[in-house]
């Protein structure tokens, strides 16, 4: 699964996700990637794209939950994303991670799996790319 979240110079957020699904899946199974609120969500406060065990992301509406915490509880993006990925998902047994961006340009990229291909680039154009929890 791949995904991106962006904040433009007008202050507008967007999120997108694209996937080939799961190896050996059957029965027309669909994961969280195309489910708005589960694997992808964006509003005026926050944008999220997820990757992981889709059934858990759907059950816990992961992307929307993170943005709702930012919007209603006024918690920092990092705290909201960490809570959902490292607490809610872990307790449920769901593995994966998210990338998230808020309207101030704050980035959070938590994951509870051994690795997640991820990266960030801000105004300075310097790429940050990582795979493991370094």
């Amino acid at each position: 699964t791949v995904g991106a979240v962006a904040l433009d110079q007008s202050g507008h957020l967007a999120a997108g996700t694209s996937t080939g699904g799961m190896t050996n899946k059957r029965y027309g199974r669909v994961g969280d990637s195309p489910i708005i609120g589960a694997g992808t969500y964006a509003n005026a406060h926050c944008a999220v794209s997820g990757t992981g065990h889709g059934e858990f992301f759907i059950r816990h509406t992961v992307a929307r939950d993170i943005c709702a915490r930012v919007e209603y509880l006024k918690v920092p993006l990092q705290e909201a994303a960490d809570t959902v990925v490292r607490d809610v998902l872990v307790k449920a047994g769901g593995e994966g991670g998210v990338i998230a961006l808020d309207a101030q340009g704050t980035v959070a990229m938590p994951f509870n799996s051994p690795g997640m291909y991820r990266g960030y680039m801000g105004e300075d154009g310097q790429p940050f790319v990582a795979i493991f929890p370094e």
Partner: protein
Amino acid sequence: QRKWGLAIHGGAGVMSRDTLTPEREAEVRARLTESLQAGHAILAQGGTSLDAVGAAIRVLEDSPLFNAGKGAVFTHEGRNELDASLMDGRTLAAGAVAGLRHVKNPIALARRVMERSPHVMMVGEGAEAFAREQGLELVPPEYFRTEERWEQLQRALEKERAAGGQASAPGVSPRPEDGKFG
């Protein structure tokens, strides 16, 4: 002045420093960087976050290194089925597609669904018919195939046969053979 920028991911899962060769890691990092640069170039010129997200994802869909577009994993029946979605935080408009087999860049179709239809989600043959109407690039199913993904499916099928052909029970992780999720 407001900050701007973008973040991307290329999947999460059981990656190991022991199995990820330096060459493979370098390739992955190069494609991730290219994806960031594609999105950043749009934002730097005053483009929209929607355009930046689409451009960044397109680079990853076109790379065989990631489970999206070219390089997608195989279903039990040996097919590639692609899903994508896009959401505009400014308007809450959204578009999603699932079960695609011929659309080269599913993220582009998700955007067309969002902007040029009254719907949010389209699946399967209907979604592909809409893609044809919209003039999006279609490719034969073989375009998405990579030998690595095909071998992953064969190993998963072998493991399934060894387990008596049992589908996963409800609530049990249908963990893919390589432990990397989609």
